[in-house]
């Protein structure tokens, strides 16, 4: 019966695709505890894309347009230093996301994201978020609120690291210990 075009059309396969998508999305802090209706709205403005091995999903230095959520495959995050050497910062897989800060402003990407194997991801971009805020302010506001919460948590974390670093530095200066400065330079934030 599964091959019957009538029944398969009636109970669209899309539903299971949709559910899988919603499952992934509900793991993302931005879309946490959204209901199905809200997911349907969001789904309408998401872009599904796929990349081949070695292809860049995000190129360092390009203006940021939005965030990506990995549906399948793995990616590595790379940063090029001023001297030209590249350094891999992290590897991400299914359900991970990156680039969410670009939803808020158009500053250049701080790192490149390269596909390690054939990779599928969902894109959520600033122009679409802006339109969503116009057409559905309640939902738009919810997303923006979550985004700010995420950024705020991260900022608090950074502040704590900074404080620790300062304390360490002060202790160093007081104790005049060996110059072993390995203070955390702050997390890569995009």
């Amino acid at each position, binding site marked *: 019966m599964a091959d019957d075009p009538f029944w398969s059309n009636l109970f669209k396969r899309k539903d299971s695709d949709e559910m899988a998508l919603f499952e992934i999305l509900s793991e993302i802090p931005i879309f946490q505890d959204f209901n199905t209706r809200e997911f349907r709205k969001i789904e*309408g*403005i998401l*872009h599904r*894309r796929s*990349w*081949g091995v070695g*292809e*860049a*999903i*995000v*190129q360092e*230095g*390009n*203006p940021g*347009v*939005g965030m990506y959520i990995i549906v399948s495959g793995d990616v590595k995050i790379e940063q090029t230093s001023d001297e030209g050497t590249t350094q891999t910062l992290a590897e991400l897989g299914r359900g991970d996301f990156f680039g969410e800060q670009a939803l808020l402003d158009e500053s*250049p990407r701080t790192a490149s994201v390269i596909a390690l194997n054939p990779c599928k991801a969902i894109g959520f*971009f600033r*122009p679409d978020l802006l*339109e969503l805020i*116009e*057409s*559905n*302010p309640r939902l738009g506001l919810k997303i923006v609120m979550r985004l700010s919460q995420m950024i705020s948590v991260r900022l608090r974390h950074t502040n704590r690291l900074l404080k620790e670093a300062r304390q360490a530095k002060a202790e160093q200066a007081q104790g005049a210990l060996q110059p072993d400065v390995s203070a955390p330079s702050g997390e890569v934030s995009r």
Partner: protein
Amino acid sequence: MNNSSSVISLPLRIILFSVLIVGLCFFVYEIRGILAPFTLAFVLAYVLSPIIDRMEGSGMSRTGGILLVFLSVFTVLGFAIFTAGSKVTGEMRDLSDRLQREESTAATLALSNRGERPIQVIGAAWEAINGSDLTAFSLVDGETLPFPLEILPGEEGAIVIGFSPDSLVFAQAKLRLELGGDLEGEWVSVFVAGNTVRGQESQLAALQQASNVIHPMGLEIDPKWVDMGEAGPNVFTDVAKLAETLQPTIQAYLGEDIDLVALVKEQGATLIDTLWGSTTVFLGGVVSGLTFVVIVPFVAFFFLKEGRQISRKVIELVPNAYFEMCLNLLHQINGQIGGYIRGQLLATSVVASLAVTGLSIVGLQYAFPVGLLAGFANMIPFLGPLIGIISASIVALATGGTAAMGLVGKVIVIFLAIQLIDNILIQPTVVAKSVEMHPLMVLFVVMVGSQLMGIVGMLIAVPLTGIFKVTLQTIYAGIRGYRL
């Protein structure tokens, strides 16, 4: 998918791309006749989309919002058409008719001799029917007419009849041909009528009945009665009449060989031909009745409802390397074009309503079509206001009669006031500075537009170029941040 594009070398890619663009341009030019409803729907969608976004934002479904907006737009339009429509369309038809109408027509009367003896026509005279006016009818080249005209058996002679009435009413007369030689004292007559379309059908029927005359000596006249078609004074006849009074003054300054009347008539006719000629081809696609009323809302509905999905599908086709850039650019271009179209339309409607109101107050005939034209023409920088002033002045000259000069003065004052309002209040607020175009550019695109699509082409050339410019600017500004 990415590998396949790198197989083709760069020069080949550029050539392929150019061929594609040229082909596309040619295709668009070929189908320009049916583009009008789509373009209009596109513009309509851009104009209405902020309203519908707002409605959707307040909780209404998008489809519901579109239907509601359409319903109100149609109600307003319907009300406008119901109340002022017939007067306005009548004015427009009348005006376009006055512009395009032939001043005079001519017809050839063939006389053939089917008899055995030569036939001599020694003269011709016009006779009134039911006291009709004879001044409209003439024999062309009165002095050189071949009277006496001798037609040998089996041969043919010709007489050319001219028709130049000073009004549009139905005119009829009898042309009486006097015969000479053996037939001295005999005559044949031919019925001639003009502007019959405006007369009644019954008059034509009566004429056809009356023209069943048996001609003596086998003189056959073809046609049996003459329909001169439609003719009457057009706008330039009236302007030329005014020019006639100015002729002596002008000749005093510019020399004897300036013939103002001929100049006005010739140049006027050429101008109208140029403007109207290709326009009708273009408008043919638009005005063909129902298509317009049905297709435009239909297409606009889908542009409004599915615009986002359409652009999403388009973006899906873009290769990964350019995807983010295209997404960003498309969004910006969309915003810019929307702003430009809405700004232009607002400026146009404000100027048009000011012009219509002003011209009606002054008492100009055809205030509505002329004001509307002035509003649309106002989109063309520099030339636009001039087009408005000139067309309104021509109408004032043609319809003003004795007070024509005073009316022209008032028209000019009205237009100066509108220009002042436009430049101080409207332009700075609604039209983006970034779309300012160089005067030479404007002149060039307006001329190209008029060449391709007549007056409609002239009017859409500037906004089209504006859209093009906005797009290029956005692309240029947006592309700089990317490493390509």
